Every structure is written in C-alpha cells, then in structure tokens.
C-alpha cells in the first residue's frame, strides 16, 4: 500500500520561541529548523506499514525552500519520495490554505492512507489533518496511539480522556498519530546518503491551480496584536541542603492542603 505523510519543518522546539513585534511572526533567524518531532512518529508509522505490506511512503511538506531539509530527513529515515509545496504567495498561510495546498498536491497521487502528526509542535492548532480529510471527502481517524491496516480498513486506538476508543474506517483515510504510537527510528548513515538521490518534486501555487485561492490571497484571519501576559510573581528558590523536603512539607501545611 502507498502512504502519504504530511510533515512540517519547525524552529527547534528546544530553543525558546520569540515573536517579531513588527511582523507578528515567529523569529526564525538564528534558530535551527528541524523536522517536527511529532511528525517523526507519522513517518515511522508509514514506514512500518510499507515495510510490512510493500508500497511506497511519500513525504509532503509545505514551507520555504529550506523545508527541503525536513523532507530529506524523512527520506533518510526510509521514505521513498517527496513533494515540497513552496511559493512566496504561501508565506504566512493559515491552516485552511495549508490544507488546500496539500489537498491539491495530493490530487493524482495513488495512496491508501495519509498519516499526519496530531498537531505541529510550534503552531499546535491541529486543524490541518481534519481540514484535509474534509476537502478530500475522506474519513479521519484522529489521535491514534495504535494503527493497524487489514482488508482495506484502518483501525486505530483513539486516545480519550479516560482510556481509548477502537475506531475503524475504510481506506483511503486520513490518520493522525500521537507520540505514543511508536519509537521513531534514527536515520542511518546509509539512509542519509541514499536520501540525497531520492526524488523530491517542487510545486508552487500555479502548479496546484491555486493562484489567488490560497496563502496570502485567501487569509481567513489576521493577528492584530501581541502583548506580554501577566507574569507570575517570582517565588522563593532554595537549594536542598537536606531540609528541602521539610520546606516543601511545611509549605503544604501553610497552604492548608495537609
């Protein structure tokens, strides 16, 4: 079976983020860009399926030209091909434009499953997978912590507040996976070398037939203000010299919770 995986390149989540007060966008200069760690689980899930049943895993990403690095990383993990949607007109796209561009890029591809992370680590709205499913008229199996494909159906364990639901949908379907679904593999040197020769197609708004229908031309919302939230008052920080536990316990008594 063929699997498409949607991935996003994000600023290194281990570096505290900043917003530019002028442009109201994230400061990306001087911050490494990485494949979203949440998306590595989506790539891993796809690789496990194609390794078991045959077929290919295709990586799709939208972003500036340097998002190619995120695709190469997924290819180094073992994915077969890539599609990079990149166009100056797509800068600062909202989720719906992103979903539209991905839906257009997917048209004509052969696939049984589209796998995405549950949400990006930087934006974390988690809207794109469901929007994509709606635009393509496909069922969405969301928040999967386990995924199995058999007899033309996908079945997941879907995370809930107090356990999980077993949910099934016919293929093709869109699936979002949580971090708990698998341990993502680390690219081997051989994989990294091979990734350099794998095909990555680049497409823009014109190629997708979306000129004037996505990105800047079709924004559904606009950020108008950014301000600092009220900070918490600084507390008391002490070094444990054998009495740390006692301090905490005394404090709990003071707070009247013991």
């Amino acid at each position, binding site marked *: 079976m063929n699997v498409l995986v949607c991935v996003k390149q994000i600023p290194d989540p*281990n570096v*505290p983020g900043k*917003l530019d007060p002028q442009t*109201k966008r994230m400061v990306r200069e001087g911050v490494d860009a990485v494949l979203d760690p*949440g998306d590595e689980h989506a790539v891993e899930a796809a690789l496990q399926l194609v390794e078991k049943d045959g077929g290919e895993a295709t990586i799709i990403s939208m972003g500036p030209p340097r998002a190619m690095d995120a695709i190469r990383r997924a290819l180094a993990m073992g994915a077969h091909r890539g599609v990079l949607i990149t166009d100056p007109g797509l800068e600062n796209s909202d*989720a719906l434009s992103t*979903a539209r561009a991905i839906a257009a890029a997917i048209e004509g591809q052969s696939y049984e499953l589209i796998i995405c992370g549950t949400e990006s680590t930087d934006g*974390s*709205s988690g*809207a*794109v997978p*469901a*929007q*994509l499913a*709606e635009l393509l008229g*496909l*069922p969405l*199996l*969301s928040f999967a912590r386990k995924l199995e494909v058999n007899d033309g159906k996908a079945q997941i*364990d*879907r*995370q*809930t*507040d*107090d*356990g*999980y*639901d*077993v*949910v099934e949908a016919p293929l093709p379907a869109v699936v979002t996976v*949580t*971090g708990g679904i698998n*341990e993502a593999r680390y690219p081997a040197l051989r994989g990294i070398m091979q990734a350099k020769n794998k095909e990555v197609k680049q497409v823009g708004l014109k190629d997708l037939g979306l000129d004037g229908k996505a990105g800047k031309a079709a*924004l*559904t*919302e*606009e950020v*108008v*203000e*950014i*301000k600092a*939230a009220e900070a*918490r008052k600084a*507390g*008391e*920080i*002490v*070094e*444990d010299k054998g009495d*740390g*536990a*006692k*301090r*905490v*316990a005394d*404090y*709990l008594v003071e*707070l009247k*919770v*013991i």
Partner: protein
Amino acid sequence: MAGVWVFAETVEGTPAPVVLELLTKARSLGETTAIALGPGASKSVQTLGQYGAKKVYVHEDPAFRDILATPAVELLARLIEKDQPDLLIFGMTYDGRDVASRLSARLSSALIANASDVVKKDGGWAIITPVFGGSLLVTTVPRAKAPTLVLIRPKAVAAEPAASEAAPPQVETLSDPVEPGKPVARVLRREKEKASGPKLEDATIIVSGGRGLGAPENFKMLDELAAELGAAVGASRAVVDAGWKPYSFQIGQTGKTVKPAVYIAVGISGAMQHTVGMKGAKTIIAINKDPEAPIFKLADLGVIGDVHKIVPQLIQEVRARKGK
C-alpha cells in the same frame, strides 16, 4: 448579531465540564444557542439553560455518538445555513477539534484554535490565544465571512451558572435523518483504563513528573506521594513520548490543561509545551536539580536538588504531619 452557538458535547446526557465554561463565555457575548447531539442529549437541556443557553437544538441519533465528526459537521452546516450564527464556540477537545476543523474547511470559515478568550471588538470578534507557554497573548480577528469558529481550551474560563432565574431554554428537537454521506470513521468499542485517585481535571493537588525522574519505575514514588496527599498524578510530554506514562497523564499544550490549588512539578524542566497546561495553578512547587530550569521562574517555592532524595523524604515528612 445573529447569535453565538456552543457545541455542547454531552456524555449520556451530561454536558462535558468544558461546555459549561463555553456557555459562561458565550452568554456574555450574545444570545446563546447550544447544540446537543447524541443519545440522551435531551437530558442536558436543563443544565445548558442554567449556564446560559436560551435555545437548545437536540438531535438524539446514535450516529453522533458512534461516528467521528462527520454527522455533527453535516448537521451543523445545515443549521448554520438556516440560522446564520456569527460565532461558534467549541471546546479544544478530541471531538471538538475534529468537528470544528472539518466544518471550517466545509464553510471556508476562520478557525482559531487554542483560544483562552473571545471579546467583542469593532463590531466583530477578537480572539485571544496564549502562545509560548502562555508568556504572550496573541489577538486574532477573523477575515472570512461569518460564522467564526473558535476552539477554547478547557479551564480557560471559570464556569458559573447564569445569575438570574432564567426561563427554561427553548428546545428544538430534530429527528431528520443524519446522512454522513461518505465513508466514515466508526467507533467499534470504548475501553476505559483504570486510574486511582482523583482525575487530573478535578484534583486540588497534582504531583507531576518529568524526565528528571530518570526512569519510568521512579514514577512509583510520585504515586506514593500523590496517595498521601490525595493528589492526582500528571506527566510532561517528554515522559509520555518516552512511553513511561500513557497519554491520559499528559499535561501541556498537547494534553490536558489543569488548574489545581497546588501543582508539584518533580524533575520537570518547564518547557513551554508543558507550562501552558499548568501555569494556571494557584501555587506551583518545583523540585529539580538544574538551577537554570525554566520551571523555577514560575515556582512559588523551588527546591534545587536531587528528586530521588527529596521525594522519599517528602513522603515521610507528609506522613509525619498527618500524624501517621
């Protein structure tokens, strides 16, 4: 203004806690309608009215319970076309997010996720979203035609019943067939996982662990401490991703938002992904060996030291104070 709608998720007739928060917000913004779907939904009407719904649409088709998102999207799209509401508010829950996102694609509407507040501004709406662990507040305005769809994080608003002895809400019971139309995602069965102690969302005290615990078996001492304090146990994304604890323990951007009276962070560095879910705690206590850990910036009391020494001692200290 043609009204504010609340997607009122119910379980066997009881509204989800976030629904009462959403209604509290919605009624301050305009004439509020609640949409209650699934078997038993009619039983939720009274509570929805108490929290501010003037009108409730009820549809009890089992499809709303058994099929993910699409039946609700079909029905909402139909009702929206008929009534033309200005604003739809959803809880940022598993189902709320799926339904709102699909609906936004169907209607080409503005969708703002992770919101903490909605206010009126220049005759329209402005939506407040905390970013970077809640250190910044971003204001977004819709630029698409109505309705605007907003996903509000649980616990962002305190639920309060409407003050006055309001008249019971007008109820419109729908029974027209629900046509998902296309292939669907169907729930085959529901599994509950056993949990002891209070739920994270309801707990007065939360003891939460991170990577600094070193190994999954070290969570046992947090379980023990929590049992002594009558606390719930939570976890950071790092340990959930590492498989030490199930996702249902996760507190943060991905995961649960909690507002306990006391939050005890053990071996948690305080990445923004985590702090956005817990910085609403009244009091924060942090124990971590790294004096530079960002969690100390939030802590009312921070202890720099070895969690493996301090936590067992703390269990003893708590027992001693309880007179055991």
